[in-house]
Structures are given as C-alpha cells and as structure tokens.
C-alpha cells in the first residue's frame, strides 16, 4: 500500500517525513512525498529544488522505502490536492506535520492542517516536531 507524506522544508515537515518513512518501512509501504506549492506564486519557500528531491528519495531508499516526490500546484484550498493524490495513489494513510497556531492565528491565517484532519478520506497521522 501507499502512504502520502506532506512535506515542507521546515522542522514540522521533517517531523512528518521521519514519522511517515518509519511507518512505511514498518509496514512495507511505498511513500508519495507531497511537496505542493501555491499556484500563481513567484517564489514559494515550501517548494524544494531538484537536488533536495533526489536527497529525499535517497533517504527513503536507505530505509528500504520506495518513494516518489510529487510537486503539484494547488489553488486556495490545499485539501483538494491531498485528496487527489490520495485517490490517485490508493493511499491508506496521510502523514502531516502539525504546527501550534493560536485561535487568532487560525482565524486570520487559516489552518491547512486542521482542514486536512477534518476532511481527509483516509486516516491521518498528525506529527508534532520534537521540541
């Protein structure tokens, strides 16, 4: 089976990646590492370059997990992109990193993680970065 791991080059994303790869290794799954960027952006700091992509795949292989990296562009709602990848890869689980957000922060900036937790069609493993 497959696991979808949401990745951004931050401690939160790293935590998700670690946990996701460990999970995949333990159950013999493949991994789809999802590194989505916002459509229409000139610069997106969530996006990783080709070297980093190769490094991720190598890291997964070292753990015995076959991984591929997807870099789709998403519109205002990132959940749809996750759903599309889940459907297309037949994933059994989504792994994402969680970040602390104050209520005001969530009101103003929104919380993609929260939406994924609530709306995903498969179980979600939410990982917090080790403090």
């Amino acid at each position, binding site marked *: 089976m497959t696991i979808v791991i949401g990745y951004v080059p931050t401690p939160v994303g790293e935590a998700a990646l670690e946990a996701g790869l460990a999970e995949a290794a333990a159950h013999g799954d493949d991994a789809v590492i999802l590194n989505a*960027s*916002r*459509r*229409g*952006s*000139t*610069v*997106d*700091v969530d*996006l*990783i*370059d080709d070297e980093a992509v190769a490094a991720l795949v190598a890291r997964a292989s070292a753990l015995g997990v076959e991984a591929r990296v997807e*870099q789709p*562009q998403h519109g205002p709602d990132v959940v749809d992109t996750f759903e599309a990848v889940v459907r297309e890869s037949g994933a059994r689980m989504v792994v994402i990193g969680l970040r602390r957000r104050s209520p005001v922060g969530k009101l103003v900036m929104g919380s993609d993680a929260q939406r994924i937790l609530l709306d995903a069609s498969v179980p979600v493993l939410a990982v917090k970065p080790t403090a």
Partner: protein
Amino acid sequence: MDDFLNGFAVVAQPDTLLYCLIGVLIGMLIGVLPGLGPAATMAILLPIVIQVGDPISGVVMMAGVFYGAQYGGTITSVLLRLPGEASSVVTVFDGFALAKQGRAGTALGVAAIGSFVGATVSIVALSLSAPLVASWAVDFGPPEYAALALLGVLLVATIGNGNKIKALIAAAIGLLLATVGQDSFSGAERYTFGSLELSQGIDFVVVAMGLFGVSEILHNLEERHGKAHVPAKVANIWPSRKDLTEAAPAIGRGTVIGFFLGVLPGGGAVMSSLAAYATEKRVSKTPEEFGRGSIKGVAAPETANNAAATSSFIPLLTLGIPANASMAMLFAALLVLGITPSPALVEENPDLFWGVVNSMYVGNVILLLLSIPLVGIFVRILRVRPAILAPITALITILGAYTLNNSTFDVFLMIAFGVIGYLMKKGGFEPGPMVLAFVLGAILENNVRRSLIIFDGDPSGFVRDSISGPILAIFLLVALWPLVKTLMGRRAASSTTHDRDRDTAGV
C-alpha cells in the same frame, strides 16, 4: 562649478533626499517584482509627482525609480532565473549558473559594484558633457528642434524593439493624436467631434497612464503563471578580490558600451546589456565559459544597463528630447510642472539640472549600499502572490488618474487608452513609440510649421540648414543600417523578436 556644488546643496535638503530614497526603493522593488516596468511605474506615479508640485523632488524621485529598477532586476535574474527587467535577461545566463554553484552572493555583489561603477562613470560623463551640448544647442531654432524631435521619434521607432513598420505606424498615430484639440496657430478645432473636453487636447499624463500603466496591468491579469521558483541561497555576500580583478575589464567595457548606447534614442539599457555581453564573449579567450558561471557574463551586462540608464538622461536634459519611453514620462512630468526641457535648461534652471544629476550620485550610493542587504527582504516580498498586488496597483492608477483634474472623463479616457494599449500588444504593436511621439507631437508640429514659414514654404530648407541637415542625415544612416545589413545577407527577416511587455516600454 558653482552650480555643480550648488546641486549637492539642493540634494542635501532632507525633502529631496527623502524623495531620492523613496524613488530608488520603489525602483528596486519594481525591478524585482515581475509585472511592472519603470516606464509604467513612472506613468502611475505622475499624479503623485504633480500633486507634490516641486519639480526637483518629483524628477529626483522618478529618476530614482528608473535607475533603481536596473539594480532590482538583477536579484531575480540571479536567484530565480527569472529576469525582473528585460535588461537583466542576459544576466540570467551566467548569474543563475553562479547561484547554482553556490556563488549567488558573488554574482549579486559583482553586479552591484559593476552597476555602481557604470552608473557613476556615466554620471560624471553626463556632468561634463551636458553643459557643452547644451551650450552648443542653445542657438537652435525651429528647424533644428524639428529635426531633433523627428530624429528622436524615428530612432525610437526604428532602433527600439519590435517590428519597425508597426513602430512607425504607432509613432505616426501618436503624432496624429497630439493634434487633437484646438490648433494653436489657427484656432481651428481638429478631431474633437464636438466634445468640449477633447477641444482642450488630450492630457498626455492620461495617455501615458493608460498606454503604459493600465495596459500592463491588464496584460498581467492574463499572463500565465509558471511553476513557483525556489530561490537560491545567498551565502558569501561580497565578491573576493580575485573576482573583482577578473570582472574589472568587463566592467570597463560595459561602461563604455552602455554609455554610448544609452544616449542613442531607442537604444537604452536592454540593448546595452546585450551588446556588452556579446562583446565580452567575442573578446574573450575562453568564450565557452559564458553561460556556465562567468563573472564577466554578469559584470558586463549589469554595468552596461546602469550606464545606459544614466546616459539616457542626456538627450532629455540637454536637448529636451526624450530618448526612450521612461524619459518621455520625465518629460511629461516636467512639462506639467511648468518646465520645458530644452537646451536652456542647464542655464535657466541650474538647481533643477544639477539637483537631479547630483541626486543620481547619491541615489547610486544608496543603491550600492542597500541592494545586497535588502536581498532577503525582496525575496520575501516576492512570496506575495502577484494576484494580491494587482488590485493595489490598479487602484493607485485609477484613483491617481482621477486626482489629476478631479475628472471622470480623464479616468474613462485612461481606461480607453489602456484597452488600446492592451489590444496593441495583442496585435504586436509597441506602445512606447506611440507615447513618445505623442509627447513630442506638439513640439514637432509647431516647429515644423514655424520652419516652413521661415523657409517660405520650401522643405528643402531643412536639408540645407547646417545643423538640421546633418541630423537628418544621421537619422537616414541609422534607420537604413538594418536594411543594409539585411541586404548583405547577414540575417533573415529579423524583426520578429518577441519581447516581454513588462519593460519594452521602459527603455
């Protein structure tokens, strides 16, 4: 000499310094941001400049926008492989290669230093040559002005980007538009179709804002967005001594090339950057290094485009002829503020002339000091989606147009010209020659008519006159050169270069 030093006193006033700072910051910003070029920005700023009312502050600010943009365009070229301005496209080739090698800071540093050297040398040359040119030209009469204005229009149309025939058509339409309104010679109404507003003529600020500002905004709405870019990391900020020695000859050559090509109407920063790069490649003993991270490949074009941007002020400040679309915006600003750019400007308005020239020294120092430290901030600004900036720019433009004369007619006229500009780009026409011709149209017509009266109806007087004759000869030479080259079989029909709209109007 007194006037020169006086100019620094003018610049040292806190107001002027502030406007200089604002100008160069805005300039760098639009250089970094995709979507608006210096000419469009200057057009959009016109209402604010007019509101401020002080010609010196206004011109200092607008000038800052213009040459500041040359610094800004480098940042995205090097870090994102995305040319911020058309004059920084060539920098992409080697600049981004250097960034991939982890030497982005070196590239940016060399570019900044080269830009500074190019601009400063250019300003010095401007300071020395301008009074000479102005004093030579001060005796010009109507035939000379007519020939110069014609030369300016024609050169921009023929040397500039885009298809020559279309550019000439656009220019001729611009000249025609300038005749709308009451004829100053005879009082007859031309092309007004009974409209009261039109009988006062078309406000060129409105035209400029429409053809440059609104049309670019409209075009940007439609532009496809590619994938987002990952910015390269900037580690070592300043280039090593070795890098600088390697870059030095390129900087030297770039300065000279940029200075001369910038003075030429229709030349400018884009052409200079290309020519400087090509020259470096040609004289290099290792041409293969270009495109793979050659310091010279960054130093040469960046120096040239700044030198050219600076020297393009010369025709405006000494002869009263704008060399490119951005200078046409400055020309418009000066006219509205009550100052007619002409050879007499240096003498009659030394505060203005030297204030502006000396502000360029100061502005370039500010840019050199700020451009590297601010790189981080600019990259963060680039994270803002263009869709968010679009309505802000749109509002500034429309509200600004309204404030010109508290008139909605102006707003609608600007919208109309915006649509015309958008359609022109669709059809492959450049708005630049049209705006330039429009701005110069009244001057050209008045001088031609006065000359005809002087020559008693004999147009060959233009050719026989000792100054306008050679000027016209120069035009013919320059205009026909590409034809000559084509006939010699060097290139196939080459007038199909499809240029990015964002700055084709700019230089």
